[in-house]
């Protein structure tokens, strides 16, 4: 049997459905944000953990020039190492007939399937390589999918300058290439970056690496110290041209996943907290009013013999019903968005089984936390009235105390009409509610600013990167550095309007104990196609001597202009030299040093060389040029700026639109929740006053102005606050992006600000209209007859 008190509960809920629904939606948004982000986080993390474990992904990696296989047993004897694996990894090219420029490829050696030691491949289709066959490869699934390759298909492959035809034996996934990105790219391009494996004997023979390896990976014993193993490994590998070992945290694919996980984690904490705070506030505002209105009913219940606890619980139940409703919707919506998010991530991260996993424990925790948050909001509202002796609760509350307002104090008392007095005095009477409401609206504006920034910063990055930094049409990478005069070959090729060369030297920067791997770029004098620019695309000066470091790199190394750093050269003759830091630059991504070509050549003790040619071309003769480039044996890869741009835009567009839509929806929920509920409460407080004014001859418009003016002032106050808060949030969120990979520009366009403001205003106006409709139906006689 439903108790009478419960019936009252449901009827109250129904009567207040508008308010209850908007609060439930704010709760739903908070829970949904949590379920989506947290679930996505857990899904990726778990997919990664099981995948790494099953494929026995290594913990430490190191590149060497060439080391004998016999060295592996010495690697395994390093304390803390449980297993070591050596491979040959080399760059290659795939000159597909129907693609203008050869694709970049990376090819690794693979032993027999059952003898795979570390970072084992996961065969998805076809079969394993037959030992010794030099005409068979396994290809990475993402590349196979992008190029529609199936086992049995044939591919042209350029290995060590020699072209040959190979057959796709199988299609595989690898824990090393979850996020498969070619060196120097800013996003994965499965169509243009091929990852392959060939039988060890065949690949070693091709690169004259028989009995040797150039890439070693190591699995640590449980509890082993990574730095200690890295140190030992570095010492052991140095004579073999070791370029410095690095842990799994620096493995490029894994590092990209880490970065994304860190962002998801911070988002999944910040967003729900914001929503729950707002929900708690709304519960407090609405319940305070409800309890106030129900003072006589509460008194009656107590007179009838209901205890404080029973009456209090009655109101808490109301809150709990709203919460459960919100939580239900939130979990469902969160699950849906989680699927969407994970699908978006699946474009970048290639796990064999990445799917959205609903994190039940976390979701339950979120629901419990939101219940607590709302009950905190409810508690202060309910406890004061419930504790009143029933006789006192039965008397109408003493008239609210109003004071002269700031308008009076400014001596404007006479100048403004009674409406403005009513508005200002009411706001002033409840300063906390006014401030919190404005803050909540400001938060929603802030969230929308984040959405705008997400879009703007990527636009800006694209502009900086693809229009300001890269001014060439085509970038041609050489297999190894060539004398600068090689450029004249290219410069005279058909359709080439201008050619410039850049020297890129892979190095390890070191100062004291701090070190990072990166590259030094040498720019030609008066070069036009690539210039040193910061993340806002401003030209940065390049002094004639010394190196200009990425600001973050300088910070990591703890150096300032004028200091000197040690540079290990990871190319050619190798060796360590010292270099003076001439300055720093706040460039957009990666960790680099920048020098003039001349200074770099003298630092390298070489005649000026280049390994990246930048071309301006005549679009009309693009095909002839492609044919020529394909014939040049020293060309490692050809990249068209327009292609890069188009791909980046198509890939990021989905992510940005989805994120922006989710954020917009959630933020609008808050605005509607706050404005609508405040207006309803204000209406309830003011109904008698407003009806009295109507009786006195005020028009509907005039009384609406009083009520909505109150809301308007709160919103108005929130607008600038929201923009400032938004920018502040943006700076906070930008700092969660791994600064060693990206320095997101803090760019928020006027358009984004305008959108944030407009959405807040539109949501406010809609809420106001909903309330205005009630105002129009105000029952003058009825309101005056009933007591407060």
């Amino acid at each position: 049997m439903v108790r009478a008190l419960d019936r009252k509960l449901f009827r109250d809920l129904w009567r207040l459905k508008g308010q209850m629904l908007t609060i439930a939606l704010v709760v739903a948004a908070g829970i949904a944000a949590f379920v989506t982000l947290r679930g996505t986080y857990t899904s990726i993390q778990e997919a990664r953990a099981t995948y790494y474990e099953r494929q026995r992904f290594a913990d430490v990696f190191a590149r060497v020039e060439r080391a004998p296989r016999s060295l592996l047993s010495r690697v395994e004897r390093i304390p803390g190492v449980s297993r070591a694996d050596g491979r040959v990894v080399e760059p290659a090219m795939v000159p597909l007939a129907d693609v203008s420029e050869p694709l970049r490829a990376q090819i690794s050696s693979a032993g027999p399937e059952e003898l795979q030691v570390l970072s084992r491949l996961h065969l998805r289709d076809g079969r394993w390589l037959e030992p010794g066959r030099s005409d068979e490869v396994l290809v990475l699934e993402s590349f196979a999918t992008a190029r529609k390759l199936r086992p049995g298909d044939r591919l042209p492959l350029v290995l060590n300058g020699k072209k040959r035809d190979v057959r796709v034996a199988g299609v595989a996934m690898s824990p090393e290439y979850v996020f498969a990105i070619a060196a120097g790219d800013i996003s994965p391009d499965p169509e243009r970056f091929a990852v392959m494996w060939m039988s060890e004997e065949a690949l070693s023979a091709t690169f004259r690496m028989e009995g040797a390896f150039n890439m070693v990976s190591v699995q640590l014993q449980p509890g082993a110290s990574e730095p200690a193993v890295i140190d030992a490994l570095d010492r052991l590998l140095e004579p073999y041209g070791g370029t410095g070992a690095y842990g799994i945290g620096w493995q490029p694919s894994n590092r990209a996943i880490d970065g994304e996980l860190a962002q998801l984690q911070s988002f999944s904490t910040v967003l729900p907290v914001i929503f729950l705070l707002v929900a708690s506030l709304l519960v407090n505002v609405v319940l305070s009013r409800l309890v106030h209105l129900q003072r006589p009913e509460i008194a009656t219940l107590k007179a009838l013999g209901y205890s404080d606890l029973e009456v209090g619980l009655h109101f808490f139940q109301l809150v709990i019903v709203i919460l459960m409703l919100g939580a239900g919707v939130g979990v469902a919506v969160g699950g849906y968005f989680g699927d969407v998010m994970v699908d978006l991530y699946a474009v970048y991260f290639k796990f064999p089984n990445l799917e959205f996993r609903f994190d039940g424990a976390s979701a339950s925790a979120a629901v419990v936390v939101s219940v607590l948050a709302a009950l905190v909001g409810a508690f202060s509202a309910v406890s004061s009235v419930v504790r009143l002796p029933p006789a006192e609760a039965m008397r109408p509350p003493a008239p609210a105390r109003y004071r002269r307002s700031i308008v009076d104090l400014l001596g404007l008392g006479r100048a403004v009409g009674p409406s403005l007095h009513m508005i200002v005095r009411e706001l002033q009477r409840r300063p906390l509610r006014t401030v919190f409401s404005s803050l909540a609206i400001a938060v929603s504006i802030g969230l929308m600013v984040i959405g705008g920034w997400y879009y703007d910063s990527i636009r800006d990055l694209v502009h900086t990167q693809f229009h300001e930094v890269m001014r060439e049409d085509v970038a041609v990478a050489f297999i190894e550095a060539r004398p600068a005069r090689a450029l004249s070959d290219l410069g005279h090729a058909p359709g080439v309007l201008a050619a410039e060369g850049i020297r890129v030297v892979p190095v390890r920067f070191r100062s004291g104990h701090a070190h990072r791997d990166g590259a030094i770029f040498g720019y030609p004098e008066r070069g036009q196609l690539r210039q040193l620019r910061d993340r806002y695309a401003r030209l940065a000066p390049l002094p004639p001597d010394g190196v200009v470091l990425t600001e973050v790199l300088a910070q990591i190394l703890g150096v300032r202009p004028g200091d000197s750093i040690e540079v290990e050269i990871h190319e050619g003759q190798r060796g360590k030299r010292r270099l003076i830091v001439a300055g720093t630059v706040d460039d957009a991504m990666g960790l680099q040093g920048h020098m003039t070509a001349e200074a770099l050549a003298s630092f390298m003790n070489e005649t000026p060389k280049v390994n990246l040619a930048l071309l301006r071309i005549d679009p009309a003769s693009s095909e002839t040029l492609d044919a020529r480039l394909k014939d040049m044996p020293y060309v490692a890869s050809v990249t068209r700026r327009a292609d890069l741009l188009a791909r980046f835009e198509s890939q990021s567009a989905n992510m940005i639109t989805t994120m922006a839509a989710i954020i917009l929806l959630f933020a609008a929920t808050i605005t509607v929740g706050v404005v609508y509920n405040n207006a309803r409460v204000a209406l309830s407080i003011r109904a008698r006053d407003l009806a009295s004014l109507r009786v006195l001859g005020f028009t509907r418009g005039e009384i609406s102005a009083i009520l909505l003016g109150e809301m308007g002032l709160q919103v108005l106050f929130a607008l600038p606050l929201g923009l400032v808060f938004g920018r502040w949030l943006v700076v906070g969120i930008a700092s969660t992006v791994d600064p060693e990979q990206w320095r997101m520009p803090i760019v928020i366009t006027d358009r984004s600000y305008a959108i944030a403001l407009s959405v807040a205003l539109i949501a406010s106006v809609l809420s106001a209209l909903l309330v205005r409709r009630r105002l129009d139906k105000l029952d003058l006689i009825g309101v005056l007859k009933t007591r407060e």
Partner: protein
Amino acid sequence: MPVDPAVLEGRALTKVYRMGDVDVHALRGVDLSLYAGELIVLLGASGSGKSTLLNILGGLDIPTTGTVVYRDHDLTSATARELTRYRREHVGFVFQFYNLIPSLTARENVALVTEIADDPLSPEEALGLVGLGERMDHFPAQLSGGEQQRIAIARAVAKRPDLLLCDEPTGALDYQTGIVVLEVIEAVNRELGTTTAVITHNAPVAAMADRVVTLHDGRLTGEVRNERRVAAKELRW
């Protein structure tokens, strides 16, 4: 003097409220006892302190000074929990403005009490007692003032209270409806033997009482025992 012992005894009761910035002395030292089975009318102008007195007797409020004893229980030193139990088990209230829960039907308003009482009438019985068996599923807003007040009475008596305390039960009603309501109160007092106190500013109502007490400015100013109770339906004003 009645042979029945006092059910409820108030001694030297005072009550001071703070309303906004003003102190209001509602009671200035009142002694009053209620005896088993009697019907007492407390007569007084508005502001004389009679509602305050009734609230204190009913455990809705506590006096600023003085004592209230219900049988063996001192209500002045009772905790909020004990006062709740006192109201729940022994007292039925009827208020001037009925104080029905607007979101509950007549039957449900009565059920509010029958669900928490030990040996209640059923809501249907209680509503039958006040002659509203037909309108049980109506919401308060669908009923006239007199009907609402009768529901309030049904709600008050459904728990079979020891005390029925009525605060201006006819204050918001016209003459005819008022008489109907008083008849119901009279019937409850007679048929269930419930000790009943009725507050009113309407002097003719006093004729239906066993005893009439007059309050003025927070003090008892008179006490009269009626030789004969006049039936409610014969009252005129």
